[in-house]
């Protein structure tokens, strides 16, 4: 199962990113493990400077904004 972490301090864009993942996962029928990382210390451990960031299976794949739907589709296609 794919482990996805959304990095963000709780701003609107971070919530939108989480929602986008939930939606795409539901539409595609894949099960993912989705977690929010809101503590700044933990976010910084990933070396991400601009939030929201996306971490898949421990690897940072995106930072600095809500990812596009196509990107999320691509990531989940590999699940």
């Amino acid at each position, binding site marked *: 199962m794919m482990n996805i972490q959304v990095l963000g*301090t709780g701003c609107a864009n971070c919530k939108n990113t989480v929602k986008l993942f939930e939606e795409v996962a539901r539409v595609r029928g894949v099960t993912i493990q989705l977690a929010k990382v809101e503590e*700044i210390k933990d976010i910084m451990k990933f070396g991400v*400077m601009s*939030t929201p960031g996306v971490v898949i299976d421990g690897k940072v794949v995106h*930072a600095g904004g809500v990812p596009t739907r196509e990107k999320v589709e691509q990531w989940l296609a590999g699940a």
Partner: protein
Amino acid sequence: MAFLVLAAMLWFSAYETLIPLSETLVAVLPVDRASHLGGALQFFFYDTPKVLLLLTGIVFVMGVVHTFVSPERTRAMLSGKRLGVGNVMSASLGIVTPFCSCSAVPLFIGFLQAGVPLGVTFSFLISAPMVNEVALALLLGMFGWKVAALYLVLGLAVAIAAGVVIGKLGMEDHLEDWVRDMQYSQATSVGDVSALHWGERIDSGVSHVRSIVGKVWPYIIAGIALGAGIHGYVPEDFMASITGKDAPWWSVPAAIAIGVPIYANAAGIIPIVEALMDKGAALGTVLAFMMSVIALSAPEMIILRKVLKPRLIATFAGVVALGILLVGYVFNAVL
């Protein structure tokens, strides 16, 4: 490219029809043009589309510019720069680097991690929210290019000077301990911005417009409506006596103090500011108020508290407030 040319042409022709259109609209309504209500309505019908047009244009351009400058790239440019030159660079880069106040803290730590000096980091952190495209577009739309340019130059000056002062004070010890421990850990960078082609850059401009203009337009309309109300009704001497040229010396610090607890974006505040000036408030006092609302806010201080010890926060707020105070006095004295 064809899209850009077409959009630019549409934009200019729309801009040219604003005055006649607003007059026509008022003429159609059963209201006397010379009355208070007529004046207020014309102001509203002219200002709202004008400001929205300017905002859309400038925000689009900035959305495209953002595809060339990522926070990672800015950080790489600033890494290891000395105080002075570094501050000038970081304040200027603060204008063009995509920045959202919710990522101020990760950005702050990320800069320090990469060896950007504390004072240089602060210059960025002050300039990025204060001198932003929304504030500049609104100032341009409502007061003309001179005031917009002054705001730009003085905002940069405050950011640069405050950063240099904080750097000189050597307050690295007043970072929270976990931040200092993190300073020399490995920083990774994500995504290369240079690989985009023009279609994607234009898309980025469009989505920037959608997210920013889509979010701030209700504030702008509410602000202009409020402004139009003041424009038509509040007597001129009323504001001038409180905030005008001959107002007491304490009007500038008072304006700054009022600004701190107010947490508004540039869009919400500028229309009110315009109406105040229209009624004879002094430019310096008004600009100081605006800078204070945007650059010094209570919620931001609370977020920064997670990484800064109280003394450094107090210094930061004090130095920035002092800079804004000087801007206010200088303006009132010169103009």
